[in-house]
Every structure is written in structure tokens, then in C-alpha cells.
């Protein structure tokens, strides 16, 4: 199962994903993790650099060649509340 790195942006709390060069709000732009240990170290370094909090790896599948979470909890984070489809990333991205 492929994985990507997710976290929350420190000042705004927004859900973010690691692109390989920085953080994006769009899960579809995330970079696939190739080395779990390195990904975890990167998460820690980004926390230390005060950019994000609470980084962790999530399972994804490729949809139209782009990563998308498989667990429902992560789909909600990547999209927004299922009961307010007018809000969150599903409405904004």
C-alpha cells in the first residue's frame, strides 16, 4: 500500500500534505513516500521548523494517477465534512 505524509498547518490548523518540496492543501498533489524512516524524520523536522503539527503517514490509492486516501477518516480530512459539501477542500480546491 502506498503512503503519503499528512499533517496540520501550525498557524491555521489546515490539513496539509507533503509534496516533496513543501506542503499542499490538496492530497492529490502529495508525493508518495518511498522511505518510511526518512518520511518520519521529515515530519519531525517540519514540526521543529514550526510549519506543521501532528505529522503521520496515511495509506492511499491512485485515482486517475493521483494519490487519494483509502481510510474514510482521511477522505473526510482531504475533502471536508460529508454533511457540508459546500465547505472545506471539496468546495475550495
Amino acid at each position, binding site marked *: 500500500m502506498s503512503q503519503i505524509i499528512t499533517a*496540520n498547518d*501550525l*498557524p*491555521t*490548523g*489546515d*490539513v496539509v500534505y507533503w509534496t516533496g518540496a513543501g506542503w499542499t492543501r490538496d492530497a492529490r498533489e502529495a508525493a508518495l513516500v518511498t522511505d518510511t524512516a526518512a518520511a518520519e524524520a521529515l515530519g519531525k523536522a517540519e*514540526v521543529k521548523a*514550526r510549519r506543521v*503539527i*501532528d505529522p503521520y503517514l496515511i495509506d492511499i490509492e491512485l485515482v486517475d494517477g493521483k494519490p487519494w486516501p483509502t*481510510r*474514510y*477518516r482521511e477522505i*473526510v*480530512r482531504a475533502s*471536508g*465534512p*460529508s*454533511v*457540508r459539501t459546500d*465547505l*472545506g477542500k471539496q468546495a475550495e480546491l
Partner: protein
Amino acid sequence: MYQYDSFDAAIVQTRVEQFRDQVARRLSGELSEEQFRPLRLMNGFYLQLHAYMLRVAVPYGTLSSTQLRALAHIARKYDKGYGHFTTRQNIQYNWIRLEDGPDILADLAAVEMHAIQTSGNCIRNITTDQFAGAVAGEVVDPRIWSEVLRQWSTFHPEFSFLPRKFKIAVTATEQDRAAVQWHDIGIEILKNAAGEIGFKVLAGGGMGRTPIIAKVVREWLPAEHFLSYIEAIMRVYNRYGRRDNIYKARIKILVHEIGIEKFREEVEAEWQQVLPTHIDVPAAEVARIAAYFTPPAFETIVPPVAAHEAALKADPAFAHWVARNVVAHKVPGYAIATISLKPVGGIPGDASADQMDAIADLADQYSFGDVRVTHEQNLVLPHVRLADLHAVWRKLVEIEVATPNAGLVSDIIACPGLDYCTLANARSIPIAQDIANRFADLERQRDIGELKIKISGCINACGHHHAGHIGILGVDRKGVENYQISLGGSGAEDASLGELIGPGFNDAGVVDAVEKLIEKYRAIRQEGERFLDTYRRVGAQPFKEAVYG
């Protein structure tokens, strides 16, 4: 309504400045997340699925119209235009930016509000009857004693780091609208034959993964010893409550493990230690606090009120709303109106900024500027003249909060669940919506009668599912949302714990199951029986057969 004295104002203002400094230090890197997390939580800032969530305290569920407008302003300026009223009579915002946090707390402080006691292992926001000071049959306004507790518990140094969070509820009528038996401490205010005020004190109730109904610690506590006795309970809990295991840390486990007799012995012994410290509030101070809750200047009205009677006759939709959402006031010619935040198919407890503003205006015009939040996630205008009810209702219809469903099948408590909450196993809100849609026909709802459905998205039970006539608990079954049904719970004066009826259902299946349960009830109920009464009479078996065959 309580107004801040200089101590309250100074405490809250100091908190704002402290938090401003803490956030600045967090963003500059001076504070790590480990250091900062407890500080933000002490100010109501959680990290949830989409962003930070801010929980604002509404002490004992009482809001002035000015405060409600400020809540609307915060929803509009710092969030996405709405807020969610909770089962602790608080409000939560789901899309908060940490960097806005200090300004939000400053805006709250300007209207005598804050987010203190909404998180952490302290004594949380005190809750009480939403009809306090308005309903007939009340011994005394329970907010007076709730306010005594608030002042005593806020930043109480001894009780700021308890083994776990601690919830206290107060009621002063025979009908319990505050679910006191489900609290760490429940207080029933009573009057004895001599006309003196006293308290029945319960302890050790709670929901979560180990649901337990509170036990009576003392049948009668004289009013003058209120705080010393509560303090003694807190001390016993603080000393013996388990800090080694988060799942066993609540007072309910302590009371359960050592037994109520031993617990009572410990409390009474501790009380003798506390009494000489003179912590009890002098009667003059209670009277000073009581003065804040002096009833508003009600007019003398002699019912029947012709305009009201005529409106009832002329407008059946209004009459339905009155029959369901309006209850008698202690003062003739007035009424208490419940504003349903449960439009059929809507999100239980959510209110938009515009709705909050409009309700604040209604409160000013028709209810002495007074609004209440209910633990069932509705709002209340507590003091409306009968003659004004029709105008109030028309406005509520316009802003879509006039569903005549208080206490009916669509008046569902639902926690935020997996749509917002980071601890959730399953969604709660869509289940509430699907059930409400299934029973959208109000005639059918009225025929079913009082039915309390309560839904939680995980075992923490914020949606009070243990106390639901029909309780629904969302669980994660191999990555798929699954819903377990329990029956026979109650959060009222006849408190009881719901019993699981069998294997869970998927999201569509649980709605079908609820419908089968309700149809079974309709088939076998006797005259005047609520769902809960029928369940108690016949037991679970007929209902299990209806659902599982």
C-alpha cells in the same frame, strides 16, 4: 443575568493576554507543541479533523442577546458562518485558525465570555435546566447555585489537575432536564417541610465506555454547607481517583470500585476536615449572587390572552408548534419557547450566524434579552408573552428554526462524529439526518410521541447514546462504519442505561432498524405509553424480534 465583577473581568482579560503571548511564543518557536498543547486546550482550542476547533463556555446555558450576537460575529469573522451547540450547553466552532485565537478570546471577553473550563482535567462548565428561572415548580433558580459552583471551581488550584475531567449538573425541579444522574456530581435542589433549601447530592455518574448512573451520597445537605461538602467530594476523588489508567480515572470508577457506602464514609470524614476552613459561602454572598438572577419585570397578565387564542385557532401550523415546543411559564400570560435546531434533515445543533443574530433580536424584542442553550442542542426563549408568541413563531419560521419537533423522533442529539471529530469511529450527523428524513412527516412524528434518539460517533458518548430511548453508537468494523443500537436509556428523572440489542448495522440498515423498532412500538403500545414506557413494560425481546427476525 449574572454580570462580571472586577475579579471575573480581570481573570478573563488576563487569560486573553496570557494566551496572546503563548500563541506568539508558539508561532516563534519558543514553545514546542508539547509545551503549548496543554495551554491551548486550557483555552478551549482543540485540533480536530479539518482545523482547530474552539469550544466556548456558556455557563449553565444562559446567554444574553449581546453574547449571542458576539457568538454570531465570531462565526462570521473567524469561522465559516456557523457554530455547533453541544450537549454541555456550549458552542463549538469548527474552522478556527490558531493565529486568530487571541483576538477571538478578546472578542469573547468583551461580552463576558471565555473558553475556560471547556477542556482538560478540571471541573468543566456547569450545566443546568434550560428553563431555569422560568418554569413552574422550581424550588429556586438553579443558576444561583450553578454560579456559586462556577466561581468556586474556576481556576480552583486544588482541582485544576484532577485525575480526569469532571462534570457537574444542577436541577431544581422534579422533572430533570439536566441529566443530573449522568454526571460526576449531580445536584438536586430541594425544599424541606420547614421551607428550607437543601440539596440531594449524587456522585459517580457518567457515560463513556463505562456508563454508570450516579448514586446518592447525601439525601439532604443544608444549603449553608453546599461548597464544603462538594469540596469534600472533590478531595476524595482527587486523592483516590486513578491516575494510572485513563479508562478508570473518572469518579464513577472510584465510586463503583469502593462502593457508595465507603465513598460516603470517606466524604463525610473529609467534610469534617473541610468544615473548619470556612469555605462555605455566607448567606449574604448567596443573596448577592441571587440578585443577578432576579426575575425580569413581568407584566401582570390575566389569561386567556385573546390574541393568542385567536392565533391558535386561525393557524394550525402555529398551534402544532405551540403544542410541541412551548411549555408553561411560572408567570401567567408568559410562555417558554424552544427553538428547534433540528430542522428535518438538518445538522443537529448547528446554527448560522444569521440565525443567531435573528434569535438575539427576538430575545431583545420578546424575551428580556435572555436566550438559553439546551443540552439537547436546541435554543430557548424563556420569557415570551403569550400575546407575542405568534410573532415570534413567524420569525422563527422565516429563519427555519420553527420545526415543531421538541422531544419527537427528529429532535435527535448527535455529536459531530466523523465529519469533524478526530476521535470518531463513524459519522453521527448523517444518521440523524437520515432518520429525521425517514420520519419527515410530522403527523407521523406526533403519533409516535416522545422519543429520544441519541447518537455518538464513538464510545466517548458525547451524543449521550447510553441515555437514549433509542441510542446509536458508531463503531469501526474493519474500516467500515457500523452502528449499534441500544434501547431503554433515559437522561431524565427516570434515568436508565440503554441495553444493546444485538449486532450492529451499516448506515442504511440502522435507519431501517430504527423504523422497525418504532413500528413495533406503535403496534404494541398501550394507551398513553411513550416508546420508553412500552419498552420497560415488555422488555427487549419483541423489539429484537422486530429487528433481527
